[in-house]
């Protein structure tokens, strides 16, 4: 019964990973001017590519940027998602169906499209916002400037991310048996107390899961900065780790060091996720043991 799954895993996960490992241990070797057939061969590189990636200042800087980006984005995104999920779940909410769809809808817009749309809104010369600021006589600095571009990107991710995470949390809230709430009510709990003392602890596993997914997604941010890059001087081709990988593989035609960087990113992401789960598991899943 598992055969199709195993075959697919081997063909589309294991094989590419093994091939990437293989590539990461090679390098190209040029003879003479490197022109024509036989001008280039591949040679065994050992750990050269890994050392190159780890000592590359651009790589270090890109990791620093996405960590900061994650610190800005994740608490805000999950906080808003939780707030909206609790509001939708509260019995006094009106137009819940409409609100739920409205909050979820931005998630259905592909990141490239939303980045293009926001790109227009961010450029003072074509943005309706800046048109209004101008009429009001306010001098607002461009959000794509180097000091604020991180927030501009986080904002794009926020809209889609809140919708998705809200749905995950809301779904697990819906699975909570309502008699617990009735009991709490009889004991004199307010809505806020119910939310804080009952709902949040019960859905803690989903919150942990969304946090984990968000962290992985943050480390892999690519579409938003890549789409915005041509619009501004403040985004480099190595702004995020994956942009660096893309540049090395496809712009610089150095698939070998790109492979090594990919492996490093994968290992770090894995270690990070594992560590995070280790730390929060006891608290979040304690009652299930």
């Amino acid at each position, binding site marked *: 019964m598992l055969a199709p799954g195993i075959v697919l895993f081997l063909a589309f996960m294991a094989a590419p990973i093994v091939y990437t490992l293989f590539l990461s241990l090679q390098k190209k070797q040029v003879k003479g001017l490197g022109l024509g057939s036989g001008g280039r061969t591949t040679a065994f590189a050992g750990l050269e590519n890994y050392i190159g990636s780890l000592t590359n200042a651009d790589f270090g800087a890109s990791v620093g940027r996405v960590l900061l980006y994650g610190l800005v984005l994740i608490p805000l995104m999950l906080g808003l998602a939780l707030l909206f999920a609790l509001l939708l779940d509260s019995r006094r909410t009106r137009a819940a169906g409409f609100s739920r769809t409205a909050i979820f809808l931005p998630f259905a817009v592909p990141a490239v499209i939303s980045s293009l749309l926001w790109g227009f809104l961010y450029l003072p*010369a074509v943005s309706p916002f800046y048109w209004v600021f101008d009429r009001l006589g306010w001098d607002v600095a461009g959000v794509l400037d180097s000091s604020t571009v991180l927030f501009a990107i986080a904002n794009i991710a926020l809209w889609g991310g809140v919708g998705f995470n809200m749905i995950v949390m809301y779904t697990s809230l819906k699975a909570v048996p309502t008699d617990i709430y009735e009991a709490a009510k009889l004991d004199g709990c307010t809505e806020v107390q119910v939310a804080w003392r009952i709902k949040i602890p019960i859905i803690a596993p989903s919150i942990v899961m969304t946090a984990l997914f968000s962290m992985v997604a943050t480390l892999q941010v690519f579409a938003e900065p890549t789409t915005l890059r041509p619009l501004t001087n403040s985004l480099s081709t190595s702004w995020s780790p994956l942009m660096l990988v893309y540049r090395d593989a496809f712009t610089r035609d150095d698939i070998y060091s790109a492979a090594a960087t990919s492996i490093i990113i994968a290992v770090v992401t894995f270690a990070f996720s594992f560590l995070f789960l280790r730390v929060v598991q006891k608290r979040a899943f304690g009652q299930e043991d």
Partner: protein
Amino acid sequence: MRTSFRVGAVAMAAAAALLMSGCSSPAAGGDTSAPVSLSYWAWAPNLDKVVDVWNKAHPEIQVTVQKQDGGDPAITKLLTAIKAGSGAPDLIQAEYQKIPTLVAADALADISGTVGSDVKSAFTDGVWNSVTLGGDALYALPQDTGPMMFYYRADVFEKLGLTVPTTWDEYAADARAIHAANPADYLGTFSSSDAGWFTGMAQQAGASWWGIDGDAWSVNVDKTPTQKVAAYWGGLVEEGVIDNKPMYTPAWNAGLNTGTQVGWLSAVWAPGVLAGNAADTAGLWKAAPMPQWDASAPATGNWGGSSTGVTTQSTHTKEAVKFATWLNTDPAAVAALVSTANIYPADAAAAQSALTTAPAFFSNQPDFYKVAADVAKTVSPFTYGPNVNVAYSAYNDEFAKAADAKTKSAFLAAVTNMQKITTDDLTKSGFTVK
């Protein structure tokens, strides 16, 4: 299984029908073999319509254009196909600066033995040099060139009483006057996204970023000509009289149309871009030769321009070369390239008749192509190296930082960093660098 058998049968019947019509057609010249079909990756707009002309006249060699997104994606795809060992087309539209990279990856076939000996005479030496890389091999046939010109809003110049700049000093003076008259207006912008644009201006100043010295490459980015160009633009950006935002953004497009961008240092293909982005300003622009460093020795650079190459995976090199030769040197084909695909052909002599009427957007300047032809004669030589891609992406990053910093010293530092990144990449790959 059954479907594929049926498709196969239909295809065989179709092939047989084509074969028979081929036999009876005098155009086939007694060639009784099945028609050869060639695939051609190209991105120039309407190129497929020019190819249709060929297909009608040559039933024995049928060419299918597979439209590509643009110069960079097409090359990335081709390099991947070459690496994979299959999937490459027979023919590829390749920009001149990509040729060394493609040759280094063994993607382009040496067609020097197949091309007629009279073909060389159709092109200028500078263009021919970029498809031979200065050696005996021939890697592509030149298709179009992009000699750089200066485009300006004639109405604004007239209103402010400015003269068209013939030197870079005059250009700077005009930039100051325009920005002073209205702080929202700029004569131009320094774009960190367009490496080809900056390369063209360095070329005009006498730079040639790579060189071959025996078995070694040299990298000459951080030399006087490029430093001079970088210092000039850095100075104007620092002064604030030239904009520092990239070209080809929605904001820049709007600026051309509303008139906050009063000029554009561009290439001969600019009318097409202006017509698309600045439709409201039709008839207000004029083209002039580039401002000069030395007015007594006019020069310009190239921005853009591409060639037709035959890939190493093609099994029909002879037919592919025959088609490529027709496309780029036959007077009817070259005239169609001008009128249908809107490009400035490398074989300008063959397109003489098509190059008499100015583009519709420049109907106010009937001598547009005369100006262009004079400019095209002054293109300075330039050698591209095997890692243009690396140098260009270094340009994007380093000059983005410099444009953001808005200081002349940052512009000069960007040139130094470009030199270092480009050289380091060559050394890392095992090239001998002198």
